[in-house]
């Protein structure tokens, strides 16, 4: 299965959601380009980013859909929830309103994604601790109550950005390993790389994917 130009084994699809101006595009940009994008324009509809990461020795290509926070694009962005393996919900720790809206984002995510979608909560702008409006403890409690992973991160300094994206991938990979995520399901958000001859043999791939491997994570 190795060789050829395919330097990855799986594709995971992510979606990034949250209120306008919380820094969704900046987090994505920090993750894909390792740079902070100042003066980031408002996202129109959806944007896209990609990066190959390594989880438990497996190369994984992330296809990340970055959505517009503005209400008027909600119809378009909602359609991208389906088929996401990971959903990152972002709020801004310096603006309580963005935190207060989390439950509606979470409802959307729960209703529109599949039950295996890994949902990760990120409190962005942790570099602006002086202007903090939402405490870590409060958000952590919310995350725990709702069974979400949670970190505070900063798209500006890069703190915890890498971790959030990688943690999510790790959890997805674990559910592939333990068989709870069905690769064949159209909406799993996970896909194997093409086979050498380009033929479709998803079922064969899946059998291999389900093998409990010597993953140490």
């Amino acid at each position, binding site marked *: 299965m190795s060789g*050829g*130009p*395919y*330097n990855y084994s799986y*594709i995971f*699809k992510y979606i990034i959601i949250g209120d306008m101006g919380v820094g969704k595009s900046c987090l994505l940009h920090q993750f894909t380009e390792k740079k902070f994008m100042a003066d980031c324009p408002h996202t129109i*509809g*959806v944007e*896209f*980013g*990609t990066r190959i990461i390594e989880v438990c020795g497996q190369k994984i*290509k992330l*296809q990340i*859909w970055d959505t517009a926070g503005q209400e008027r694009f909600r*119809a*378009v962005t*909602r*359609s*991208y*929830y*389906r*088929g996401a393996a990971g959903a990152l919900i972002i709020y801004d720790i310096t603006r309580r309103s963005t935190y207060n809206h989390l439950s509606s984002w979470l409802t959307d995510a729960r209703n529109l994604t599949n039950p295996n979608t890994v949902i990760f909560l990120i409190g962005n702008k942790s570099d602006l601790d002086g202007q903090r409006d939402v405490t870590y403890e409060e958000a952590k409690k919310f995350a725990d109550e709702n069974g979400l992973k949670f970190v505070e991160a900063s798209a500006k300094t890069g703190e915890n950005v890498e971790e959030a994206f990688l943690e999510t991938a790790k959890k997805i990979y674990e559910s592939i390993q333990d068989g709870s995520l069905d690769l064949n399901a*159209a*909406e799993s958000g996970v*896909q194997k*790389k*093409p086979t050498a001859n*380009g033929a*479709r043999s*998803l079922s064969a791939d899946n059998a291999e994917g389900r093998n409990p491997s010597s993953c140490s994570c």
Partner: protein
Amino acid sequence: MACLYGNSIKAHISGLVSDVNTKDGAIWYKIQVEILDVYWFVERRYSDFEALNKKLVDSQGIPRDNVVLPPKKFIGNKDPEFVEKRRQQLDEYLKNVIQLLGQNPPEDLAQFLNLYDFEVIFMLRKLASEIFDKGEQILADQNAFTLSPYQIYAINERMKMPIPSLDSEDKRQDFSHIVEFCSRLQSLNIVGSNISLGSSTIVPNQYSMSLSIFKSIKFLSLKLINADKIAEVGTVRQTVERISIHNCDFQSMNQFLLCDSVYKTFAESGLSFSWNNVVSINCSNNTFESVGDIGDLVPSLRCIELSYNKLRNVFNLTSLPLLERVSYSGNVIASPEDLHLRFGNIVILDMSQNIVECLQPFYKLYSLVLLNLSCNKVSAVEQVKHVSFLPCLESLILTGNPVASSVDYRVKALSYFGNRASSLELDNEKANSTEMDQISIIQAIELAKRSTVQGKN
């Protein structure tokens, strides 16, 4: 645009079995498929209908009340009366199938109606699975990928549609694959056309494009593109290094460089419209009548190819500090003005196939190493004297000029270069020993003449 979803719910397919067409003895039915303002034709036989029906029976629970395929007939099935009756029956059948399944056509129906060639969603599904299979190889080899304006338009529109990126069972058809590929692609060819696509009424060049999905383009090539159809350049403006434009209808370079600006000059549009990383532009074979004030728009430009346009003048490129190579070959330049006021320190200048008679304008291009003036109208060998003082000149090409067929042309021309005569290449050839002897004689005579004149003074 042919699109089943998107901005208008009125979009529907109306398959009409019109004309009956006989070819190779068999009866073909011509189907007109319409979506919004676009239509195309598909030709199918009764057996194709039969095959479609069989698949739909398996997958879609047909036959239903009114969706029944007219039965097979073995004898007399080419009788005109019968064919007409069957045409009506099949027309009815197809209309009913489409009424039932046309909102979200299954794969078999989509194939039957050629949706994969023309309809945005299906076309992009097909493209996505091609890219899923071959994309990584193309990116790894850094090969170019070709798209038409209609495809790019379709991708742009698809981004705005409230439809999941994966809307079929086959994950290879996920729209994410296209967007990911476009965001990583380095070399893009956009090939337009003013002729309609296949049997459809879709003319690719009617559709305007936004290039904002392309995030890593280094080489951009445009062929047969309409000047007013690039609506947005996006990050391509920052990433692109080489541009080539051929057979497009741009009138000037500026028209392209500022295609997405409401302003038509750099002074008005400002720094944000600069193409900072462009080092090479090839716009041969267009209809440029002017270059425009491109200097500040492409500050890193090293090489510009302007051959085979309709240029009458040499344009001012002095604001390009790094410019080294310029080609104006195959234009209609007659008598350029002083060229050192038009270029900075250029090294290679190709002005072949113009109508230049006089070399005087070249006399101060001190950095010039290669000057190609083949196939112009230079007739007097004395003209060579004007370029003989260029200190860096190593090669001069004058083939195809009237002067090149005059008596003792090489010897006379080279003799103007003094003691550099032996190192200079004239028409890609250095002087041979016979020529060198003759040149020395001519130079000696010249010297003698001069000293006599001086002596007399």
